[in-house]
Structure formats: C-alpha cells, structure tokens
C-alpha cells in the first residue's frame, strides 16, 4: 500500500534478495527412475550493482545541490538514490555480524584541505594499498578520495553511525514533489554525519568554505573507520571555527625549506581545533613558528580557493576538447593535495562513486533571518538600520543628510523645476502605510481622467509640490511607450474600435442633420470637405485671439539704457571719435544714414616698422600691465583678497563690477 500524497514512510533498510555477485543456477531433474537421467543444467547469473561509479540515472537528488552556495550549516548533506537496495547491495562482510545490515556506502563530507580527490585512475589503484577488491568491476577506471588518518578519525562515520545513516523512503509515485521521477516509489537515502560549517580566516572571521561530498565505497576497509568514542568524551557543542585538518600547504615553503617539511615541522595550517579537541591523532603544528617563512597561513588558503572567476577563465581559455577535464580540475582545486604532502602521511584511499561540491557561506539559517527581520509598515524607519546577527556588517557611515519622511508615507526628494530652481518636492509611491480612497464616479458616472502628468501635480499645505501621481502617470506612459507592441495595440484599438465608431456616428449624424441635407441630397458631397475646411479657416481667422492664441509682438521691448551723459548719439560719437554736430548738420540734407556714410572715423595708421618698436612695445605692455594690476587691486571686487589672476571659478576671472554686473543687480 503506497502512502497517501504528501506522506512518506521511512524504512530502516532494504536488503536485496540476491546480493550482487556471480551465481550459478544449478538445475537437476529427478524423474524417480535411476535409468532415466537428465544432464544437470548450470546457468550463470551475474547480479550487477554499481561499485566504483554510480550511474547518473541512479542519483535522484543531492542536498545541498551541486555547486550551490548557501547557509547549509544546520543541515546534513544527503544523496537520494533510485534503487532502494543500493546501499545494501554488496554483501561486504562487516567486521562483526551486524544487525541491522551495514551499508557499504557512506557519504563523507570533507572540507578543503582535508583530503584529496584523484583524477580518473584504474580501479585497482582506488583502494588503499594492500586492500584488493575481487572482480568483477563495473568500470575500468574511477576516482578515489585520499585522506589522512586525521580526517578519517575526525570526519568519517563510525560503524554504528553507518547503520543509521542510510534508510529507505517510500513515497507515492503520483506525488511528483516527493517521488522526483522514481520508478517504483522506493528511494534509498544516504545521509552524511557532518554539518558543514563555514571556514575561518586568519582574523578568526567567518568566510565561505567549500566542501566536497563523496559517496564512497567502504568494501574491505570497515576497520579503518573510527571507533566510537566513549560517552564521556562526547560534547554537546562544537566550536564552529575549529578545523579538522588542512593539508593545503604553502607550497613556496615546501620549495624553500623541504627539510623542515619532510621532517614534519612544516606548514600545516591552523590546526587549532585539533589542539583544542584533543583527539588521538592530533598533530598540532604551529604554522608560522615552524616554517620561519613568516608568511601568514591564510595567504596560502586564499590562493587555493578557486573563485568562480578562475573557473570561468579556464572554461573560456581552454581548448574545446579539454574544457571538461580542465574545468573539473579547476573546480576541485581545493581538493588536490600535492603528492609530496600525502607521501609523508599515512593515508587511505576510498573509491568515490559520486561526488559534488558546494560552498557553505556565512549566511545564517532561514530561521535566524526571519526572526531578525525588522517589521513595520512601509514609511516607518527602522529603529536601527543595521541587520541583526553575529556576522552583520557595521552600518556604513551616512554620507547624506537624513531622509525626510512623513507619517503619510511621503518622502522629500530634491526636485528641479522646469525653470531650473532647485527645490524639494514630496513623493509617495504606490505603496502607502494607510488606506487611501479611490476616486469615485460623479453624478454623471464619470471619473476624473488625466491627460498629462501636470494635471496630477498638487501642492501640499506646506507649499511644496506633491508629484507622486504625476510620477506614476509618467512611469505608466513611459512603460507603454517602451514597448512597441503596446503602442501598436493601443493605436490599433483606437483606430479599429472607437475611431471607426466615431466616424460612423459622425456620418450618421451628418446625414440626419439639416445643415448637410442639401449637400447630401444633391449628391455633391465631394465639395463638403473643402467647404468645411474653408469655413473653419475663416471662422478661426476672424477671431484668432480666441481660436488660436493671442498674437505675440514681433519683438520684445528692450530695457532703457541708463547712460551717464543722457545722449546716446553723443556717446556713440565720442566712442568712435567723430563730431556729432557735424553729422547732425549733414543729416539735415542727407538723412542720418547718408550723413554717417560721409563721416570718416579716425583709424589708427599703420606705422612703418621701427627697429626700436618691439622693445618699446614690450616696455609699454609691462607698464600697462602694472598699471592695470594696481587698478584692479585697489578696486573693491566681489572677492577681495584674491589676486586678479586667481579669481574664483565661475567669476569669469574679473573681479570688478562692470556694466553687466550692474544690469544684473538691477534685474534682481
């Protein structure tokens, strides 16, 4: 009976009727008569099961998802397999006769630096030296995980843990969310025993840490698994900053000081957790003290962690047929330990059937985020803008004046008017803290309708403009204009539906009205348009002020000039150096234009070049400059104290008031 939708049933294990292996089916037929014999029949059967590589179709899902980044620190990684018996398929003899049966699969989660993932190698090399797995092998090559004793002791599950880490889940096939495309509704689930924690940098600050989850084959190596610790050694808490093991060495130290490295006094990083925890295999090595290189350990860690950018650059630059391998290499870069390091340690190899990596970030859990939320109505300002939580960044210093908010949800914003004035206006978006009333129909069933945004601008009691709805109008207009299909639909609608309707009704009314009766009856309607146009034009021309707009005068009167002498002619004549009286006399006969044409204006004469002229001119220039400078300095300008040549920007470099300044002042 399958469970109902939304429900599932958990089973502790599912043992295959026939464990994987080679079998001979021996058949004999006894006919009860010794004289009648039949030849026995031997049929050979091989029950196959994955051993070194998990076929991709057997993996239904993983958690965390491959290459995911997130705050997975309170969740156990898991892998869901399609065939329910997979974790118990191999009847690998457990060290003692265990009930319930011990799975041969384990999901181990290792952090960067805790172990090394190999490339593809022949399966014979995939196990620790000395451990030989009997054929048949499902694949010729596979990958293996090589880990030192410390990692095994620190991270791997115990034999007892193993039995509770794999279970079978029975779901309703019709429940797509739970069944995930399975064929029989029974799924095998392998859990890890480790909650992946974020990493820690040299300043004991949390940083994202990359993890590799490996589904490993434990055949023949059950005795390597750590022994259960006595109850007294267990603790109820852990230090999330501790590190089990980090074999990522500062390779530069390896090169410069190979002796120290080989002797074991080398550059293992930050093994503070081991020292604190006191596990048996602890090798507390002081990174910086031992090497003497003085290089901070975290530098190496940084260089090891592949960033998405690195991976991308590899993906882009690699040759097409090598991309797959190179990108894979780059992605597992944190899980490649130099052979020289592994060579000096006692390490174990486990065949890896499936592996994926994910990154645990410093993010909190969903629960901590939701409980840390600042709750309020829009328009209310948070009591403290800083997010809660241990990893919260300090609030950046405010580089702007405090924002203006009102209880109604309006925000004061700088506003440049069309005249160019800089003022402040109120704006309130569509999301408001209190209910608003919508416009209702008036007695005729009509609603106010704005044709331009200016119709929606209002002035608030404090004298400032409220441009909220005007802004909304413009956004709606621009959104419509930004999509040609909408503009086209609008035009089509207008043309096909109510454009046509308007034309139809106009024709109808025209036909019924007296004024067109004659025209239409005499059948000379082709003149109607011309007649209408002419009449309209005449009507408009008769009263342009009303129909079109008031006339604008061809010129605007200028401002009267305030001249010291009072006589403009005198000023012009003085400036150009001729006699005004003479011109006026001539003007009596010739007119002003003719008189001016007859009057010579003195022009400076071109003097033949004098050999002494350049020096003289230079001397004069100097004298003039000095005089000018003296005059400028003595003139009280708008920026006293400034040198003439150093006037304030925008001042035009001129410190004295001139006629223009006077005009401007008058204008004010």
């Amino acid at each position: 009976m399958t469970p109902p939708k939304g429900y599932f049933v958990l089973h502790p294990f599912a043992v295959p009727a026939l464990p994987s292996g080679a079998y001979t089916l021996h058949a004999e037929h006894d006919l009860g008569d010794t004289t009648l014999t039949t030849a026995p029949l031997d049929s050979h059967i091989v029950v196959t099961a994955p051993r070194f590589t998990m076929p991709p179709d057997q993996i239904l899902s993983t958690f965390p998802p491959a290459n995911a980044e997130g705050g997975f620190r309170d969740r156990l990684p898991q892998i869901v397999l399609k065939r329910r018996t997979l974790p118990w398929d191999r009847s690998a003899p457990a060290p003692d006769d265990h009930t319930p049966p011990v799975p041969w699969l384990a999901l181990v989660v290792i952090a960067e630096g805790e172990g090394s993932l190999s490339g593809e190698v022949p399966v014979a090399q995939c196990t620790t030296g000395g451990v030989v797995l009997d054929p048949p092998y499902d694949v010729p090559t596979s990958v293996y995980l090589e880990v030192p004793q410390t990692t095994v002791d620190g991270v791997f599950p115990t034999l007892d843990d193993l039995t509770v880490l794999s279970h079978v889940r029975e779901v309703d096939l019709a429940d797509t969310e739970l069944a995930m495309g399975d064929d029989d509704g029974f799924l095998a689930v392998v859990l890890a025993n480790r909650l992946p924690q974020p990493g820690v940098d040299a300043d004991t600050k949390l940083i994202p840490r990359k993890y590799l989850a490996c589904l490993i084959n434990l055949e023949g190596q059950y005795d390597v698994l750590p022994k259960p610790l006595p109850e007294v050694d267990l603790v109820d808490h852990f230090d999330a900053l501790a590190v089990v093991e980090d074999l990522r060495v500062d390779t530069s130290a390896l090169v410069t000081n190979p002796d120290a490295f080989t002797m074991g006094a080398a550059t293992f990083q930050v093994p503070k957790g081991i020292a604190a925890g006191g596990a048996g295999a602890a090798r507390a090595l002081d990174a910086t003290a031992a090497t003497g290189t003085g290089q901070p350990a975290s530098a190496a860690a940084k260089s090891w962690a592949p960033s998405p950018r690195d991976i991308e650059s590899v993906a882009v630059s690699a040759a097409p047929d090598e991309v797959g391998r190179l990108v894979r290499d780059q992605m597992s870069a944190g899980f490649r330990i130099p052979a020289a390091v592994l060579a000096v340690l006692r390490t174990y190899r486990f065949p890896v059937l499936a592996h994926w990596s994910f990154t645990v970030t410093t993010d909190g859990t969903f629960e901590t985020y939701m409980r840390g939320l600042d709750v309020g109505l829009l328009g209310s300002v948070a009591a403290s803008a800083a997010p809660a939580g241990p990893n919260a960044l300090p609030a950046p210093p405010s580089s702007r004046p405090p924002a203006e908010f009102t209880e109604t949800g309006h925000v004061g914003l700088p506003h440049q008017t069309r005249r160019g004035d800089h003022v402040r206006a109120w704006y309130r978006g569509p999301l408001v803290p209190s209910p608003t009333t919508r416009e209702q129909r008036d007695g005729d069933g009509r609603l106010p309708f704005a044709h331009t945004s200016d119709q929606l601008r209002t002035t608030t009691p404090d004298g400032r403009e409220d441009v909220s709805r005007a802004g909304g109008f413009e956004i709606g207009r621009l959104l419509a204009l930004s999509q040609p299909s909408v503009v086209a639909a609008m035009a089509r609608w207008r043309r096909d539906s109510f454009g046509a309707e308007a034309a139809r009704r106009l024709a109808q009314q025209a036909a019924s009205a007296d004024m067109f009766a004659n025209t239409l009856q005499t059948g000379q309607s082709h003149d109607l348009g011309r007649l209408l146009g002419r009449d309209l034009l005449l009507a408009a021309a008769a009263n342009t002020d009303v129909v079109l707009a008031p006339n604008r005068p061809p010129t605007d009167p200028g401002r009267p000039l305030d001249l010291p002498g009072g006589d403009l002619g005198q000023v012009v004549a003085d400036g150009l150096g001729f006699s005004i009286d003479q011109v006026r006399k001539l003007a009596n006969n010739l007119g002003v234009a003719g008189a001016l044409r007859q009057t010579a204006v003195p022009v400076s004469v071109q003097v033949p070049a004098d050999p002494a002229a350049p020096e003289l001119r230079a001397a004069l220039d100097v004298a003039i400059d000095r005089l000018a400078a003296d005059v400028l300095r003595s003139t009280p300008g708008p920026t006293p104290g400034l040198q003439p040549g150093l006037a304030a920007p925008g001042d035009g470099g001129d410190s004295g008031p001139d006629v223009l300044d006077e005009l401007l002042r008058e204008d004010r």
Partner: protein
Amino acid sequence: MIEVNLTATAVFANAIDLVKTFQAPVAETDELGNDRIIPLELRRWLARLRLLEGVPFAYLAADSELLPPESIRFFYVDRRYTDALVEGALSVGTANTSDRAEMEQLYPQIRDEIDEEERYVRMPGGELPPDRVSETVTGMLLRSRAVSGWPGLHVRAYGAGFQAADDAIVPDDDPHRLYMLRLERLAPAVLLALFDGIPAAVHIEEPRHGIQFGVRFDSLGDPSTLQPWIPARDGTTGLDVQPLDRVSVPCRPGSPGVLDMRRMDERLRNDLKTKMGTEVDAGENALQLLRFPYRQVFGNPPGQGVPDPDPFRPTPTLRIADLEVAFQRGVQ
C-alpha cells in the same frame, strides 16, 4: 457652390455632442461571456501595469531607508497611484482633443474592466480568484538574505477572522485565505507580494524543496560555539513530543559539525516520550532528524484582548509544520 448652413460653431457643437455621447463598441467577448471594450492583449497589459509590473523599484520605495536590509514592510496599495499609471499608459497616442475627450468618456468603463482583469493575472496552478473585484489591495516587501538564499518561499495571507494556531496545517481552500494578486522577486533579495484584502496573519515558509535533515542550533554566548539539538518526536506518530522536548546532539570533539548518530539515538531511546523501544533503526533516526519547513507568522496572536492599531504586529513565533509525516515501523 452649394448653399448650406455650415458654420464652425455648429461643427464644434456637433463634435462635442458626438464625443459626449460616445459609446465604445464592444471589442470582444471574454472567456466568461462579458462584453469588453478593451482587446484582450491590451487589457492584460494594463492589468499587469496596475499590479506594478515593470514599475522601477525606486518609484515603489523612493528611499533605501524605507526598506533597509533585513526588513519586511507591509503596505496598502494606493489605487489612485495605480490608476495614474493606467492613465499615463492610456495617454499614449492621444493625438487631438477628440481622442482625449473620447478616452475620458470611456475611462470609467476601462477602469472597471481592468479591475476585473487584474484578478486573472496570476492564477497560480489554475486557482480561480474570488468572484468579486478587489477593493483594498495590500502587500508586503521583504528584503532579506532569506529571499536570495531560499528561492521559492511560500507566502500565505489570511484575512480577518482567521483563528488557526501558528503551527496549524491550513488547507489551501481555507475561507479566510486572501487571494494573492502578485508574488514576485523584484531583485535577488527583494520579494513583493500583493494581497487582495487586509491580512490578519501572514505566513512565510521555507520552500519545500525536497526533504531535509538537520538540527537546530543554540549559540552558547560565543557565536562560534554552537550547540546542536533536535526536538524529540514520538516514534509511533511522527509528531513532536509535547511539550517541546529538546535533545542535545552529541558531537565528536575537535571535529566541528560531526555528529555522533549512534549516541544521539541512544539519548532519544532513553527519552521514554519518544516511544522507540529498545533499538533505534535508520528509519527512526531519519524521522528524528527531519527538518520541516520553518514558518514565520506575522500577525496578531489569537486571543489577544486589545486590538492592535497596527494590524501587522510581528510575533516571533517559532513553529514548524505543514508537512505531516506518517511514520511506520520498518518492513521486512
């Protein structure tokens, strides 16, 4: 030349009269048999605009202080503003006075049609909207790393009269449930939801992607020291032991995050309330470690005497639920 009594005044008067009595022809009949003057594609687009689709975020929240990081803000939707959006869109292509006058004449009908249409914009999973036009539209903006880290949050709003406990499993057809007009991530970490009505309670739940196993943490003063624990569950029913029975999970010393499953199971077995017999098997172990989607409830806690003026007062209730797990002893 034919003599007709045709003056500009007469023509204008007639034009005005025509516009004033203008009735738009029916553009089409919609799925429900109602006559519509706006063609479908335009109606859809205007309804989506009414639900603020495409409106730049700076126009929704004009200042970043209105929506600081890690905050949730509830609001009413100003229908006058959303009407202005539609008016702006309708102003496109009105070339002359008669266009405008016709549009003005038709606008009441246009507004009604968009009111009708906006209910049909979302319709998740073919769910039909309530058989009435939305009056008050409210909503919430959530800006949090929870949005970026947990895509696919479940958001539910319940109207006045909703009395269910915070951890109750509320069926989707609960009569108090408010229809959701829009639920969308505007930015990786910003979620916008629009409800049809005024909510009394809002539930936000973790996405239900698959089944997850894990623990809960207590922090022991020092934020880096974590104490994992799980709520004990009854092995025969799969439900939490009531009252909450916290079982701390033993850890392997020196190995951050590594749990000792066997010892944890022993502790659970010794806790008689779990009714798990003498041996804890893998299925029972998994049952104890199951983590249900976390639900955060915003709203007035039921039974509170004085009505709170702020309808969205938060209650930091900590509840799990909604997925119920039936547990059955192992087969074999």
